[in-house]
């Protein structure tokens, strides 16, 4: 029954310096991943789930990360893929981004106006693809090339999503359209 029996030990040669550097780098990236996850999902609990799913996936795929590559871009692309493929475990719908965004002690009577004029709420209203493009570039400072690669889209597509996203955001925030229901497709 106890056929082959071999004894294996862990390989202990690990550079403490490198390990520390990676831990510090990761800690920095996690902040960005949380922001991106929040921009994508629109809620803090869902964002945290997405961050955890991303880390689980990254651990499993750690060997696909090539030393010298951008750890940050690699993690963001894992997160982006997870999000768009929709293979994550699902939580029941939770509080929406715009509710979080105005929850900072505003009087209820002001909610409707503020909802439209708040930048985060306006971001949440953008189509998912434009939101992703704008978040990666404007919030996380990725180069256009990296942002396109993370989303797996051509550069031209990124640029047009970025331009459209920005213009919609501008029209929403311009204050010319204060009633949320009229925002969609609205021009002055």
């Amino acid at each position: 029954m106890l056929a082959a029996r071999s004894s294996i030990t862990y390989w202990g040669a690990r550079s403490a310096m490198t390990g520390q550097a990676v831990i510090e780098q990761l800690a920095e990236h996690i902040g960005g991943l949380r922001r991106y996850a929040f921009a994508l999902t629109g809620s803090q609990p869902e964002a945290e789930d997405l961050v955890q799913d991303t880390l689980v996936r990254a651990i499993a795929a750690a060997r696909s990360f090539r030393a010298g590559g951008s750890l940050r871009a690699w993690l963001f692309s894992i997160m982006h893929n997870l999000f768009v493929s929709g293979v994550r475990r699902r939580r029941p719908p939770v509080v929406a981004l715009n509710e979080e965004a105005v929850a900072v002690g505003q009087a209820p009577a002001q909610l409707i106006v503020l909802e439209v004029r708040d930048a985060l709420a306006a971001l949440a209203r953008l189509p998912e693809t434009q939101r992703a493009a704008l978040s990666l570039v404007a919030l996380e400072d990725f180069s256009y090339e990296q942002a396109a690669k993370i989303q797996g889209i051509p550069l031209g597509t990124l640029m047009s999503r970025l331009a459209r996203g920005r213009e919609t955001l501008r029209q929403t925030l311009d204050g010319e359209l204060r009633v949320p229901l009229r925002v969609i497709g609205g021009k002055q």
Partner: protein
Amino acid sequence: MSLPEVTEAELQAFVDGQLPAERCTAVLAYLGQRPAELKRLADYAEHKEELRRRLENVDLAADNPATTELERALAARLTRPYYSRWLRYAATVALLLAAGWISHGLYQNYVESRIPELVIKAAEAHDVFGVDQRRPVELTAASMAEMADWFSNRLGRPVEIPVLSTLGLHLIGGRLLTADDRPMAQLIYEDEAGQRLTLCLSSEPLELGEEVELVEVGDLTAGYWQDGDLTYALVGDRPDEQLVAIASELGAQQPGGRL
């Protein structure tokens, strides 16, 4: 007079500080002639700043313990890129080093066949996901039927979730991982003392027998065997006899039976 040619992409790049230096003059000249465009870009820049400010004020709870654990596990994984390969080679490499064989490259052929990749992966997965009590489990024991469906679907074979409560082992949950780009189902069991045991299932065709083979992987012991279309790897920090007993229980329970 003619206005300089400037594209929308260049205007966007101007806002993001990604415009090549040699195009800045052209963009500035373009904007100098067009106050409305200048206003538009100024708005974009302002909204960008506003978004960043707003996002900074959202409480994104940076101290989630489960996330921190995963972060550490990832850091560990990334700082030993050859973990798996060395794990597999280490013992033999040490032997061959002593024997002066290492320069011949023979060890690769020799060691390669020792332990299936799946078993190494299963041990790694036990290390990362099986041990920590706080680590989130993707599925709970309450949804066993759902889990069986999910695994069967991903593995492309009918999979049943083994019940080991007669041996005092209770299912805590499971997750889907990958080994060699193939799906690998991991089930996590716990005994009364809170000690965990993980079982990995894969549909990877390996030339294994139905007899349990035992190997030591670090502090862990793994037993692996094949039953029909499925390959099993059982991992825990347990005496050999216990692993073998659990393995026989599992063999007896599997549908499909013989090849």
